[in-house]
């Protein structure tokens, strides 16, 4: 049994080795770059998901103020992403990152000590700033430390780690909520732990930012290729946010109890799917180009919306949650890769702020509004969203592939050489 297990582990390692055999990024840099972003990203999702629990440790706060706090958190994250992307070009990056991590740890840990409405609102601002100020810089290191032909896989590893951390954190948090009276403290400790992961990264390597050409926001918005890539991503996030209103509609139906299993298991799988598909997306993006995973992801989301809209049932809801989770895995990795491709070593943080982070926050905001208001929209919205998603694929088909064509050709050539050589060797043996 042991021999079988170690054989299986060796096979997985070899497969992983094959996928990273052409990596130019060193192992140290790879670990540092991925950990720098993944811990903070996981932290953001966990804080957002358990906002109420961590803000009502010892003092009961009205739901209205909790939702205001959430809105303040997201708004300050948005503003600080924009500010952070601008100051990254002008400041010492290591000092920025250390300050950013320290702020995040302080803002998170202080939740265990200070409570109440006013502190909640102040801390919401600090939490948002502690995410946004340094995160574009973190993702921007992808352009410096990873070359184009490996960027997808490195980005895939970031999101694989982040979603894996999120799943683990959710498991611990849910267990503590069920069985413990100090669930909020445990969740805060989890969040502190997740933020601390970035410290490991800073200890591993002295992050340096390549001083490239500084670009204005105008020139970035004016980049035709960027706009063509951005349209599907924005539509994806808006649509994913809007479907929360459809879910509210399902909750409000008389037979909503029938959907309980779909929501519970489906949501769990919804977060597991990106863990797997983030890695797949990275491999596809580096091998075949960035456009293919975008098209896959959009088609998957379109199909899942169509299923939900046309055959509304617990099964279609479950399938929607599962397939959309996979779509997230595909898309989020590509949209963490394309900004580096397009930035050409200049103002990559602004590209990340615009392309990766802000659309995500739009999604969360729409979801937040749906949860806060309880408003619902009939399930036919889902069918309309599916058509919009399919149509949104068109701009990216018109965009120029950002993975260099020579890279795609070289990989194809190398794979072709292997296959042809095998054939020739067989022929030589027969002769």
């Amino acid at each position, binding site marked *: 049994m042991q021999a079988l297990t170690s054989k299986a582990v060796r096979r997985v390692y070899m497969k992983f080795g094959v996928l990273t055999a052409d990596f130019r990024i060193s192992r140290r840099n790879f670990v540092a770059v991925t950990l720098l972003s993944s811990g903070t990203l996981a932290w953001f999702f966990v804080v957002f998901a358990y906002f109420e629990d961590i803000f009502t440790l010892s003092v009961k706060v009205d739901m209205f103020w909790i939702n205001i706090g959430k809105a303040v958190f997201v708004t300050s994250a948005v503003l600080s992403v924009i500010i952070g992307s601008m100051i990254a070009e002008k400041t010492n990056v290591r000092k920025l990152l250390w300050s950013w991590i320290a702020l995040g740890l302080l803002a998170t840990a202080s939740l265990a000590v200070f409570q109440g409405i006013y502190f909640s609102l102040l801390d919401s601002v600090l939490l948002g700033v502690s995410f946004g100020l340094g995160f574009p810089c973190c993702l921007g290191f992808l352009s410096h430390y990873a070359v184009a032909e490996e960027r997808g896989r490195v980005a895939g590893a970031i999101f694989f780690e982040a979603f894996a951390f999120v799943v683990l954190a959710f498991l611990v948090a849910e267990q503590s909520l069920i069985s413990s009276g100090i669930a909020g403290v445990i969740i805060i400790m989890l969040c502190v732990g997740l933020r601390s992961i970035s410290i490991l990264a800073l200890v591993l390597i002295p992050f340096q930012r390549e001083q490239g050409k500084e670009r204005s926001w105008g020139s970035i918005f004016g980049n035709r290729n960027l706009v063509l890539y951005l349209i599907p991503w924005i539509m994806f996030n808006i649509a994913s946010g809007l479907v929360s209103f459809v879910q509210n509609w399902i909750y409000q139906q008389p037979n909503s109890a029938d959907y309980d299993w779909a929501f519970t298991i489906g949501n769990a799988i919804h977060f597991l799917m990106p863990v797997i598909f983030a890695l797949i997306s990275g491999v596809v993006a580096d091998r075949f180009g960035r456009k293919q995973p975008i098209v896959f992801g959009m088609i998957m989301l379109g199909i899942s919306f169509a299923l939900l809209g046309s055959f509304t049932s617990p099964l279609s809801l479950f399938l929607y949650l599962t397939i959309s989770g996979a779509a997230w895995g595909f898309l989020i990795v590509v949209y963490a890769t394309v900004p580096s491709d397009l930035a050409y070593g200049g103002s990559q943080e602004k590209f990340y702020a615009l392309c990766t982070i802000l659309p995500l926050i739009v999604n969360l905001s729409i979801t937040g509004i749906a949860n806060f208001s309880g408003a619902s929209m009939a399930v036919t919205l889902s069918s309309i969203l599916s058509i919009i998603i399919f149509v949104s694929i068109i701009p990216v088909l018109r965009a120029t592939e950002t993975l260099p064509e020579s890279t795609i050709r070289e990989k194809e050539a*190398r794979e072709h*050489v292997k296959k042809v050589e095998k054939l020739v060797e067989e022929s030589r043996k027969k*002769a």
Partner: protein
Amino acid sequence: MTLGKTIAFHSYKGGTGKTTLISNLAALYAKNGKTVCLLDFDLYAPSLSAYFRKSPSCYLNDLLRGEASISDILVDVTSELGLNGKLLVGFSSPRKEDINEIEIKHELKWQLAAMRRVLAAKNQLFEDSKIDYLLLDTSPGIRYWSINALAIADGLFLVMKISDMDIEGTKRMIKDIYDSLTRFGSRYYLILNKVPGASPNSEYFSEKEAVAAVVDLERDTGSRVVTSIPCFCDVSFNRHEFLSAVKQPEHLFSKKLIGLSEAIKDL
């Protein structure tokens, strides 16, 4: 077991003189009594049919499609050239539709099926026709049919000019695919062609620099320069240079080719 040698000429860029060299080499071997088969694997920009001025009824493309055998596509040019041995030439189709077909047929299944036909044809040539040399002219750069042709060769000869662009490009190409290609025993060598210095106005040319460049090249590529052929305008820029090595045996170009043929025999 095949006893003959399969030699492929390749280059990073076009215009290095591959077709001229390999055609002359084929004719030289045939003049010396050998049985030689020359195949035009430059399927994307075929030139041998223009060089030999032939329009055969069947082309290499037909062999790849499985619509013709190797004996159908070979043209015997021995008697018209007055050679002592035998020279058989297989041409690629210069028709636009055939070139387009090759350009777009990337699917692996078709490629491997075509390769099996090529390998079967190669075995037939060595076993039945008892050829001594199979020479393959290929397309420059990294293209499917260049790789396919190089894969079946025992010796790969990279023809290059001594310019920075060519040198850097060749080094990259060696790193990208040659190391994989030579895993199963084939070897690659370098041929420097159109080397400046043969011209009388050579005050700008430094032989010392050229030698130093060769040393660096051998070190950087891990390979050997088997010959260095000077640039001859009457060969390179003649509108219809045709088998100078056979027609003008006293020309320095021909003597260089003889040297190359001896070097290949000994490799």
